[in-house]
Structures are given as C-alpha cells and as structure tokens.
C-alpha cells in the first residue's frame, strides 16, 4: 500500500467523566471513567483484567460474574461509577498464588468441567461465592444444579460442573490430599 499522510483520528469521545476509587483483588485503584462505562468494560479494558468475560450484556449468561462486596454480581449490569468504594474480586483474584489453584479451580480442571473456558470464570466465581456464603452447603444434585442456574454453559452439558462442585467441597474439607 502506498504510504499516505497519517490521518488525524480521535482518541476519545465527549462522554462526561467521573473519578472512581475501588479495591480490586486487594489492590486500591483510582481511575477517571465515562459515567456510562460498564463495570465489566472497566475491569477488562481499564484494568486489563480480561478474565471477566462478556457473553450477553443483559444479565442472563453469567459469564461476567464477579464478587462485589462479598456477593456474586453481574458486572455487565453494573456501571463502573456504581462500584465506587466497592471491593471486587475477579477471577484473577481467586487463586491464592501463581502456583496454586483455588480448590474450585482445581476441581474444574480435574473433572473436565470446562471446554472453551469462556463461561468458566463466571461459574468459578459463582461457586466460590456459594461456598463462602454456605458453611454447610447442600450438595444434592438438585441443589447444586439450582445453585448453578445463574450461569450458562454451551459446551459441557453441566454434568461435569456438578461433579466439580462436589469435588471442590471435598478438596476444601479434606485439604488438597483428598
């Protein structure tokens, strides 16, 4: 292609902006953002935490599930400015270290509970939250499936995800040797 004069292209729009400060995966962050920026886009594109996936942008699929002030939340139905002052954990903050997986992550791997992996961070966040909120979880088939029914998976047929929930509980109860 013949080299042409570099075009002058815009770098930003004229959206009103506001400063937000929040804690993400234990780290305090402050950014100036468009007031209509979704929390999911904020996490992904402002902070570079791209493990929070966006599958439908209308709160049905659950791919964008994060932990917001201790509860599972849809980051695609939340504005970044609404999360001002909040504490958020994304999938990147679930594993205790770079070498060790969280028992829920480990269980998903062991049980072949993921294929394409796109829904997986949302599922893992939902399951981790469930265990954090329930000291004595009901691990019957129906109860686990009900708990999982906020997240869509198009690859696995869910069966191995159900197994992974039980396996994760085993790992958490009996330690890594289970």
């Amino acid at each position, binding site marked *: 292609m013949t080299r042409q004069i570099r075009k002058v292209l815009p770098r930003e729009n004229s959206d009103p902006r506001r400063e937000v400060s929040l804690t993400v995966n234990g780290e305090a962050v402050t950014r100036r953002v468009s007031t209509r920026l979704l929390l999911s886009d904020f996490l992904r594109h402002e902070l570079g935490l791209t493990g929070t996936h966006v599958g439908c942008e*209308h709160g049905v699929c659950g791919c964008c599930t994060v932990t917001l002030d201790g509860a599972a939340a849809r980051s695609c139905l939340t504005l970044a400015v609404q999360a001002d002052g909040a504490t958020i954990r994304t*999938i990147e903050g679930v594993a205790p270290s770079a070498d060790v997986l969280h028992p829920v992550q480990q269980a998903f791997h062991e049980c072949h509970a993921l294929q394409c992996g*796109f829904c997986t961070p949302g599922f893992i966040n939902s399951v981790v939250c469930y265990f954090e909120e329930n000291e004595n979880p009901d691990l019957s088939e129906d109860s686990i499936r009900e708990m999982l029914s906020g*997240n869509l998976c*198009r690859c696995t047929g*869910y069966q191995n995800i159900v197994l992974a929930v039980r396996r994760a509980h085993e790992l958490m109860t009996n330690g890594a040797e289970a």
Partner: protein
Amino acid sequence: MSTAQFGERVQRLADAKLVRGEGNYIDDIPLDGALHVAFVRSPFARAKINSIDCEAAREMDGVAAVYTSDDIGRLDIEMPLLIPHPSLTQARTQRPLARDDVFYVGQTVAMVVAVDRYTAEDATRMVDVDYEPLGVELDLEAAIQDDAPRVHADVPNNIAAHFVQTSGDPDGAFARAEHFTKIRVQVDRSTAAPLECRAIAARWDTVTEELMVWDGTQAPISVRGGLASILGLDEDKVRVTAPDVGGGFGQKVMLFYPDELLVPYAAMQLGRPVKYIEDRNENFIGSAQERTQIHEIELAATKDGEILALRDSFLHDTGAFIPYGIAIAQVASTSIAGPYRVPNIRVEFKAIYTPTVLITPYRGCGRPQACFAIERALDKLADELGLDRFEVRRRNLIRDDEFPYRRDGLVFADGLPVEHDSGQYGRALDMIAEHIDLVAFAEEQKAALAEGRYLGLGLGYYVEGTGLGPYEGSHIRIHPITGKVYVNTGLSCQGQGHETVFAQIAADQLGVDASDVIVVEGDTGAFDWGVATFASRAAVVSGNAIHKTAIKVRAQVLEAAANMLEAAQEDIVLEDGKAFVNGVPEMAVTLAEIATASNPLRYAFNEAAKTSTQFAPASKHDGPALAEGEAPGLEATDYYSPPHATWAYGVHAAIIEVDPGLCSIKFRRYICVHDCGRMINPTLVEGQIMGGVAQGVGGAHYERIEYDVDGNPRNANFMDFLIPYATEVPPVEILHLETPSPLNPLGVKGVGEAGCIPVGQVLASGVADALAPLGIGPLEHVPLTPDMIFHALGGEKDE
C-alpha cells in the same frame, strides 16, 4: 511415562490458564489505540434502499470513519460462494455492506468506526437510511409458490437449488412392497449461540506491510486465503490467528461474515488497529443459523417390517443467502436412511430463500433433521405393524457382516461415496435395552400410571458421517534446548481439547509425556496448509496427520540415538523423554541432546550444544556436516487425506416424565450408547457427548428462533431464546462401544456433533409413549414445546 497415552483419560492441558481467567480471547488481546466497530443494520426483512446519509454520524465526537458500500473500494462485491455445486443454479451471496437492497433484518448497511463501542453505537443511530419496504413470505411451503414475493427478484419460486439423489431402484421396490408409511416432519430454526460471540481484530503493519488478523474463526487458513485474494495481498503478507475461541459449533466456520473483510480493510485504511466484538443481539440477527427443514418421508416395507425402500422429499430453508452451498441439505439427504439397510432410496430437496439470517452448518448440520425424519417414520411403521420399536429397528439395522455398507448413488458432502465403514449396530441397540432394563421399566411405567404419573421411553438411533477431507497436515519438531515436542496443525480449537488429544497421539510415538508436547494451531504464522475445524473431523484428519508425522520423527530419533549410543536401532527404547538401549536404561540420551546432536552447530550456546560444535569428538566428520539429502534437527511434516467419511453412530434413550396438565417434561434418565471408533481420550469424548446432548435438549424442547410474518426476529436475546441451564439438562449415562474405523491408521471416528443428533426424536418418542394412555396425537415437529404437547392432547389453539 512408559505406557501408551492414546486411550487414557489424560487431563486437559489447556485448563490451567483458562480456570485462572488467563485465556486470550480476541477482545482480551491488548491493542493500543484500537478503534471499535458498530454496524448500521437493516430494520426490514426486505427493502429497497433509497438513500444513506452518514454526515451527522461522521461529525460526532469520537467517530473516526463511517463506511457505506460506496466507500469500501474492492470489497464492494458479492462475497464468495464457498462450495459450488451443479444443483445450485441460483446461488446468491451477500455484499459486505448492502447496496440498493436489504434481504433480512440485521443485514449490515453501514459501518461506524469510533474510539469505543459506546460511541460507535451512538453514531449508528445518527446514520439516516431511507428504506422502501417490500413484501415478504417466510413460510417455506408458501415461498415456493409462483405468486410468492421473491427474496431475490431474479430467482423464481425462491428456489436456490433442487437436487435428487437415488440409490438402487426405489420405484421398483415401492411397486412390490406390502406396507407404506408416510409422515411429514418438521424441525425448526435454531442457533449455535457460542458464549463468546464472533469477534475480529486487525492491525496493518506499515513497516513489514503485513496484515495481522485475529479472528474467532474455525477456519483461519481459509480466511487467510480469502482475505489475501479479496484484498489483493500476497498470502504471506496476511497472518490469521484464531486464539482462544469461546465455542463455535459451526457458526464460526462460515466465512466471510461482513466484518471479517471490513475490519481488516478499515485497519489498513485508518492505520490504527480496529476491532469488532459482536454483541449477543448481533449474534442472533447477523450470524448464521440452521435447522428448518420440512420432510415428507415414505417407507415401503414388508408386513414383517423390513424396509424395502425410502422416499424423502424435503424443503430446506437457506435464509437470504447460500454462501455455504447445499452442504446441510446434502448431509441430510445422505443421512436419511440412518443405520438401516435400505437398498432403495430416492431423496430430493429444494433449498429455499427466505428473507432471514443466512443458514450455514450448526453442530449436527442436517443430521438432526434426517434423524428425526427416519426415526419418527420408523416409530410409525412399528405402530402400524404392531411391532415393538426395538424389534423394527433390529430387523433393519445394517448387520456386522454387511460392512462396509455402501449406498450406491448417494454422494456425501465431501463429494465422495456414502459408505458406512464399520460398526456393531445391533449390539448398540441390545446394550441400551439391557442398560434400561425394559421389563423393569414397563413395570415402573405401569405403577406410575396407577398413581396418575406419565412416564415414557424415548428412543433414537443416529449415524454420523465424520472426518471429511480434503486433508489436514502436521508439522512436528523436537526443540533442541528443551527437548519439548512442538506440534502444528492447520485447525483451530473452540474448546474441544485438541491440544490434549493431539499431544497424546504424538507423545506415544516419541516416548514423552503428553504435557511435554506443545500443540500450536489456529495460526497461519505457524502452519498454513489445511482447511478448518468442521464435520467432526479434527481427531480423524489432523489426528492421523499428526500420527503419521510423529512416526517419521520417531524414525529420525531412533536413527540419531542409535548413532549416539552406538547400538542397533531395533534395540533403542524411547521413554520419559529419553532414548536408551533396551535393558540398559543408564545408557541414555535425552531428546534434547538428540535434537541438539542432529543439528551441526558452530556456536555452543549451552552445555548440550557443545557436543554438536565442530571440534567436539561426537560431531567430528571429514566431509560436510550435513550429508547430501540430510536436514538438520528432528523435524517432519506429513498429511492425511481420508478416502471418504468414516461413519460413527449411536443410540440414545430416555425415561421422560410428562405432566399432561402443565404439558411440561422432565428427563428422569438419559442414556447414550455411542461408537466413535477408538477413543483417544474417553473423558474428552464424554465431554463432547454431554455437551452435544445439552444442545440437543435445547433444540428438542426450548430453543427456536422466532420471526413474525414480516420477518422481524422476536426472540433475539437470551431472555426469550431459551438456552437450557443446569436445571434443564439431564445427566447422561454413557456406554462406550469401540469399533475401529478401517479407513485410517488410528482407527478413529469423529464425535463432535454426535450428541445433539437424536435428541429431538428421543423426546418426541418419549412423550408419545408417556401420553399414549391419553390418546395423544402425532408429535412430528420439534422443538416440541408445552403448547405443542397441549395441542397434540386435543387442546384448542390459542389464536
């Protein structure tokens, strides 16, 4: 690792990064200064475009460019017809941006490029398009009438293709048959709905003059070829990479979607990276769908239920365009006799244009429709003759001694004969009958009925021609520094676990652990011979290519190791990443050392490399360091091209409880017997089946793309298009049968699509069985929704 890894439940190698959220899907790839695309899309199913005014959009803050068909130079073409066929006499394909006419709601009319998606979407609202709506007909049977409004003005009766295939002498067989069964069945439109929608990003490098494209496609090499051709670039100047892809199921094998041409074009024009991340609504109105077919199928049989002949005539909805040719209808045609010995077949179809989202293969690709037609017909034949459903099937299944069983005259979607290569069809049916325990179920059904509960047994048999050509290839190199085995192939992966099964295949030949095999695919920069991931072909075609290549590399390793260890090649054992003399494991050299020694060096960049430098004793030589005809390193390339498709098969059954008051259904048990030849990794095979069944359950009961009579989509979102959650999908009891395919060295068959094929039949036959005491009418249409059950029970239609 001394035991074979082929056939083992090796845990997936791709998981570690995915469970941490560290996958690299296209929108995750950091591209500094990237501009974002949004499209102006047609709000009408069929209309003339009088004018398009983009001025207001172009002036908005944050907008970089707005394109219409007048602004895209050489891209303003009808996009490629991918699979031409003689019967496809009226092929029409779409333009990247509409010119003069629009043909479905959602068609791309103009493209906005802006600083972010928010701004780009705002600007699409500022593009003023003056449309003149035209009449439409969405009903297939009405669309082929002479007076129906035409989708394409020059295509009479909206018929894109008309094709008849014949095997044997169907007319003669019909003339001498004793019993005839005829039904009309319908399968409705659905969509793949991968959880990652389609996505593409592109960057033009002004220094190297290379176009880098990240495309969530199942066919990166094919996209590369097409892009180079259409943009007028050398193929080597275009690199297409499919990184992590969040599910495909066929929707992403279609090329080209408008964005796949327009985004690279805009990146070249604007000198900034450009990306288009499809949203869910766009996936429903812009990305290909599949399924609607109406079959009229007729069986000619003896009084004993032996099928002598089959006639099937069907209408196939192809949407507004037919870029993928007649592939789906052809697969349906050639799968229509299922697993049965039907010596005489006449199958005919018409592919019909409707002003709707275009139709290309979605997991199953015509097989679910064919399966539903033949299996429903067989159930009706059994009913009419007073035969048991299992028994009528048993009498007609191809016997073990009849393989290979060729359906002379039928040509499959690969242009090759339909020949069922191997199987134990009768045994599979016996296995499922035993596993269910039919006697016990009959008692349970009776007891339930006494309590006012309705249990039914669903049963469906399927076949699947898998592993289509033309070919795939493989390149393997053992890395001299790490000793790791690098494997390339031309496919891309959408979550199936290619990296694991391909590693298992290579690992067995080279005596390493699968975790030491690094599979790199989906990148034309790494390997660029091959076709795509489709038709349950990866394990068969790429798998065998990798196997053949690994055998070549193994021979190189053995030769080099024998030299280094001063032993006979026959005595060398490859194990744990080392070669040693049989019985003397301490006399060993590592693969890294062998690879290093196979590459004469001038510079010693590490300890092992010293052995390969010019003054080292081991590499001392009197002549050239590489003899004439020798190549450095441990490396080979090979290809596999199948003689024709290899036919997998299986049978599904379910115990279904129906509430005739609510007309709701519940799967009590779901059982699958399947045979995909030798299994490379049973865990991954089971994953494919369970996922397929889940999609099948969706298509059987929940998922239907709905259009109103004007061609407006009515449920283009996840609130209204009902994908089953964990609460709707039953656990699947899977029984494996392994009959090797005689067609390929590994003896494997494909399994990717199998799970979804018979589920509609399983549900319909199960509901029919459950509600038989209430005298339910025919169930010959899926998805079989509660209101359809209500009507079949005699309920009044709610107009």
